[in-house]
């Protein structure tokens, strides 16, 4: 108990110093697990959260909750603040019992601190959970062979979206090779249309280009090596080639003017794409629901999608996917009621839960998902996405989620410097090689 309170004191005081020095209000964590048998669950508070709200209500009313003697209280944390708030809460006595995360590097610190419940055995033995999910999705979120998360949202592969109407107007077809893509760029620029929308201010949309190009040029093994802690992996010629290819696109004006001050998260880049100012957009599958929410006509009539093209002479299969396999629920190892937490996780494997994800436009990562996809708002897109992930020889977790935050932050800074022209591809490679 004594160490706990000291930690809390340090945590609270440390956060207060930093926060007050910069004029922020320190965010104390609220909620927490009391002795009342209520478990707190932190979730990323975006539009998709309604599926989790229903799941919690269903669980709280269920016999399973009564049997385990615990109820769930859902704490919706607004998007951009989520990782920092989770970190603050996990360092305090008010840590959530269950929490949303991206798997991989995003939970490594919690695993190292002994705060994660190892779910490997439960996922292979529990009757409701085993066989419930696509195996590649379960393992993509794990750490060194152990699993700490149960999938709870739709799959989020990165897809090349394009404007079908604009493509038809200029007699273009979706590219399958890099040369075709360059050819399309040239034609679009002649027609005064920016080839690609890009929300460079957020930086992670820039990262998607490097992720796919590195995969297509050098295959998935290149980043696998880096992810496993071998920083010499950045020295692979594929990384340099990918950076050079990106540089050519930028110098060629493929992303239009001002891309570095356009953001994805505030709707800037989706608007550029939906209003026909740009013809293509490399983005996670959530682009579909974003457009459906903001520009429904565009989403229904004009939005097309395809896999990222191959690069001539490259090692990567066109079926390889990068992105976020999904999001996960993880359980705090110190939770007061393990049984209730696991009973709650079982709901994520249920058919009802999967159907609700589908109705929301998401593609569940459950093994029964395919049969449900006809009920999706856009079955054609849903099936494309499901098959894309199901058939992928490899699924590379987004780089910024796969590595530790203290590596991913400077990595993103270096990527931004490459995109805004502050460093050359060679300087980029030597800078990321130095990250540890």
């Amino acid at each position, binding site marked *: 108990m004594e160490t706990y309170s000291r930690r809390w004191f340090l945590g609270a005081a440390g956060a207060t110093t*930093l926060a007050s020095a*910069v004029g922020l209000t320190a965010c104390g964590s609220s909620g927490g697990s009391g002795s009342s048998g209520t478990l707190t669950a932190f979730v990323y508070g975006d539009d998709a959260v309604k599926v989790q709200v229903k799941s919690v209500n269903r669980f709280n009313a269920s016999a399973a909750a009564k049997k385990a003697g615990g109820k769930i209280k859902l704490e919706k944390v607004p998007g951009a603040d989520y990782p920092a708030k989770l970190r603050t809460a996990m360092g305090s006595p008010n840590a959530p019992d269950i929490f949303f995360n991206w798997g991989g590097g995003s939970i490594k610190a919690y695993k190292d601190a002994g705060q994660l419940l190892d779910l490997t055995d439960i996922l292979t033995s529990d009757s409701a959970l085993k066989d419930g999910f696509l195996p590649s999705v379960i393992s993509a979120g794990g750490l060194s062979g152990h699993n700490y998360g149960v999938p709870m949202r739709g799959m989020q592969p990165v897809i090349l979206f394009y404007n079908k109407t604009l493509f038809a107007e200029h007699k273009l077809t979706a590219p399958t090779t890099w040369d075709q893509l360059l050819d399309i760029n040239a034609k679009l620029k002649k027609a005064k249309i920016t080839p690609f929308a890009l929300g460079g*201010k957020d930086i992670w949309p820039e990262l998607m280009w490097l992720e796919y190009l590195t995969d297509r040029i050098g295959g998935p093994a290149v980043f696998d090596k880096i992810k496993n802690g071998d920083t010499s992996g950045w020295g692979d010629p594929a990384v340099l080639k990918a950076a050079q290819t990106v540089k050519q696109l930028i110098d060629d004006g493929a992303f239009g003017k*001002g891309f570095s001050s356009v953001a994805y998260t505030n709707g*800037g880049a989706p*608007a550029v794409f939906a209003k026909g100012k740009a013809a293509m957009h490399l983005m996670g599958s959530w682009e579909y629901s974003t457009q459906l929410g903001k520009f429904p006509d565009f989403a229904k009539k004009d939005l097309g999608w395809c896999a990222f093209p191959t690069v001539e002479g490259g090692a990567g299969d066109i079926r390889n996917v990068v992105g976020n396999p999904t999001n996960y629920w993880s359980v705090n190892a110190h939770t007061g009621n393990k049984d209730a937490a696991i009973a709650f996780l079982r709901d994520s494997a249920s058919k009802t839960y999967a159907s609700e994800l589908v109705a929301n436009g998401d593609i569940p990562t459950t093994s029964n998902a395919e049969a449900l996809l006809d009920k999706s708002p856009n079955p054609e897109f849903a099936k494309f996405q499901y098959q894309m992930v199901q058939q992928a020889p490899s699924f590379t977790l987004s780089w910024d989620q796969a590595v530790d*935050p203290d590596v991913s932050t400077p990595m993103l800074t270096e990527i931004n410097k490459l995109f805004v022209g502050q460093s050359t591809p060679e300087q980029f490679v030597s800078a990321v090689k130095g990250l540890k």
Partner: protein
Amino acid sequence: MSSTPVTGKGSARQGGARAGRPHAAWVLPGVLFFTFFAVAPMALAVYLSFTKWNGLGDPQPVGLDNWRRLLSDDRLIQSLTITVLLTVVSWAFQTVVSLLLGVWAAGRQRNRAILSAIFFVPFLLSSTAIALLFYALLDPNFGIIRQDTLGSTKGAFLAIVFVGGWQFIPFHTLIYQGGARQIPEVLYQAAAIDGAGRYRQFFSITLPQLRNTATTSSVLMIVGSLTYFETVLILTQGGPGTDTAILPYLMYEAGFKSYDFGYASAIATFLVVAATALSLLLVRLTGFGSMRSTREGM
């Protein structure tokens, strides 16, 4: 002092302890507040700067590691340069504009009173709201100014200076307005009789009389610029690249993006030391501490 009647001292004594200095207990709330919310967190930041801590578990002592890293970090030099540049340019911009506006607003005309009230509005808005507003106005595709303002190093820097000025000039205008109103009318009347014009009056009377006001306003501006944060976070996130990553932003990035609270605390401590040293220096150089009346002999 010599004119103070001797009986005055005597009567104070006669009043006993109660009528003398306020009891020491009166400072207690202030001292407690300052201790808990300023001194204690600062002391903890100093302690954390000698540890490695990612926010979970106990901080691990690492000696001088963070400090060595800080001193050899290229980004610290860059950040320091940007911070100093931002401080100097903001100071120059805000001082000139608020001095002129403040002196103008000191006039008793009705229209000036109304306009001054309107000019004051930006200061009442939250800096986050202001930054979001300007971010939208500067959007390269849908904004008012469809240039790549925030994507270029100069543009982003000037945007931050401008937005900061837009927000804080009203406050400093108010200080200068108050200062200008304190200047005795007789000085201007005497100058007018001597044949001094408007400009001569401004440079020979108004400016010298506002010396103490300018010092107050400048100290506030400079110390404020050192801890400037929200505008950078929202407008540029330190970008393009790292070109507008001022020290407080660097600290935020280390703490709340990399979860390297030890290193972030080292930056925070550095910032506290630098800001304190700078304000002490300013107070010394400007004679603020022993502020002398600008109206001696009047």
